[in-house]
């Protein structure tokens, strides 16, 4: 197995630089909100002493002059997804494990790219220069990752020769294992992969359980983790800029209802429902809120999705007044079966809705509306209520 690991260090920061080139030469910290706390998500490389997930106060005590930006995960993901799309033109085996880290299966590409240099050239051509990618090629994912990590920005390396010598002096912190295991290794005084490789596997297994075997294998350069290519399901993304900044949950729900109406118009014809989706909002001061909603049975209509969204909104409050919102449908599915209600009222309501749907299908546009409260307290009269199609 031959794998290329492509690392894009400080990916989030580079994404921001892509849309705001003016921040390239300025010290910037990207923050995320966790509960009531603000944490560092990414930062300019010149800001020393910072790490992801440290509290923002701690970061500002060192670098008070840094410009603060709130995270924009949907944007970062769409940039990353675009990169993966481009890389899939080189190899069908592309796995984006996390934002800024890609594994590409490059076995069998010799006829297209006769040597590794041309292969990496092709990979680098798909990535904008601003990302300063680092590429490493090796026989498995772990070695490819380590090789890429040791490259300078824009650098490349193919791992050849003595693997044991390559691994010997690397720190144990590079192992892709749990924090708890890393801490335990530190307490045992095991600092390098060379020290780990020299140990017999038995003591490691007895101390670390199943992870001990993996630690031992990785320390000796064995990694049989396969590449998991992206699921080929096409995600549906919809977003909207609200007419006015709002804190009203009803207004948010109505906007999501509108977006879902569009989604269901597209997928219902194929008999599909929603299995999994992400809902997100962006506040007027660019703070991000995002939640994943999964359905045990595919949701086949707007109402069932909206009910879940309402519950999520009540459980996880918005960080501020919302200016933009959207959704990403990540999984679709066919319904297992559907049973009509036992109750006559519910059945007649279902029949009425079905009749309205048929009418609209025939005439092409929503024909029956109901009045919905959006912002009944608004000082702007036309913002208080909307007419919503009944069939949605």
């Amino acid at each position, binding site marked *: 197995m031959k794998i290329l690991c492509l690392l894009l260090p400080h990916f989030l920061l580079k994404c921001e630089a892509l849309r705001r080139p003016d921040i390239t030469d300025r010290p910037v910290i990207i923050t995320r909100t966790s509960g009531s706390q603000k944490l560092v998500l990414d930062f300019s490389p010149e800001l020393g002493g910072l790490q992801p997930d440290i509290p923002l106060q701690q970061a500002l005590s060192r670098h008070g002059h840094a410009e603060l930006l709130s995270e924009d995960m949907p944007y970062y993901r769409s940039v990353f997804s675009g990169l993966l799309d481009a890389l899939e033109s080189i190899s069908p085996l592309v796995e984006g494990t996390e934002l800024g880290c890609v594994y590409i299966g490059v076995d069998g590409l010799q006829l297209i790219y006769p040597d590794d240099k041309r292969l990496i050239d092709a990979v680098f051509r798909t990535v904008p220069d601003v990302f300063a990618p680092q590429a490493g090629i090796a026989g498995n994912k772990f070695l490819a990752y380590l090789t890429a990590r040791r490259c300078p920005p824009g650098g490349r390396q193919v791992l050849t020769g003595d693997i044991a010598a390559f691994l010997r002096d690397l720190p144990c912190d590079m192992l892709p294992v749990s924090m708890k295991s890393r801490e335990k290794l530190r307490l045992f005084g095991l600092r390098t992969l060379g020290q780990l490789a020299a140990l017999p596997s038995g003591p490691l297994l007895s101390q670390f359980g199943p992870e001990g075997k993996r630690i031992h294998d990785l320390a000796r350069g064995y990694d049989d983790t396969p590449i998991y290519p992206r699921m080929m399901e096409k995600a549906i993304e919809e977003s909207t800029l609200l007419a006015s900044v709002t804190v009203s949950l009803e207004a948010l729900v109505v906007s999501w209802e509108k977006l879902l109406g569009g989604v269901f118009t597209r997928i219902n014809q194929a008999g599909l429902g929603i299995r999994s989706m992400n809902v997100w909002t962006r506040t007027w001061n660019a703070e991000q809120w995002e939640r994943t909603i999964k359905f045990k049975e595919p949701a086949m209509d707007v109402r069932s999705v909206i009910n879940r969204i309402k519950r999520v909104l009540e459980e996880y409050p918005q960080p501020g007044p919302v200016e933009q919102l959207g959704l990403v449908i990540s999984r679709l599915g066919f319904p297992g079966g559907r049973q009509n209600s036992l109750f006559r009222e519910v059945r007649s309501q279902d029949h009425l809705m079905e009749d309205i749907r*048929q009418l609209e299908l025939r005439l092409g*546009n929503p024909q029956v509306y109901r009045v919905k409260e959006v912002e009944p307290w608004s000082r*702007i*009269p*036309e*913002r208080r*209520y*909307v*007419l919503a199609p009944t069939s949605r």
Partner: protein
Amino acid sequence: MVEDTGETVRAGAYKPVNAPEIIQVNEDAAGLPVVVKNKRRQRVGYIDDCWRIDDEWWRTEPVSRLYYAVRLASGQKLVIYKDLVTGGWYRQSY
């Protein structure tokens, strides 16, 4: 089952209720409404009330309106407003 006409059902089919309607108004020197053309031209008998709303001043299209609750010569009550951004007159129930 009705056959699919092939037409796309519009997703963005939500309509605002009580959207403002453009109306012709003659103003006096002080900017107050004196004649309103609402189906036919009518003089404004008197102004019952007047209030101003300013909102969303931080956006590219701020809202700045001066509302008048007027009584026309025929006795009809009407709420109109002047859009202070564009200068246009509108009729809208408040």
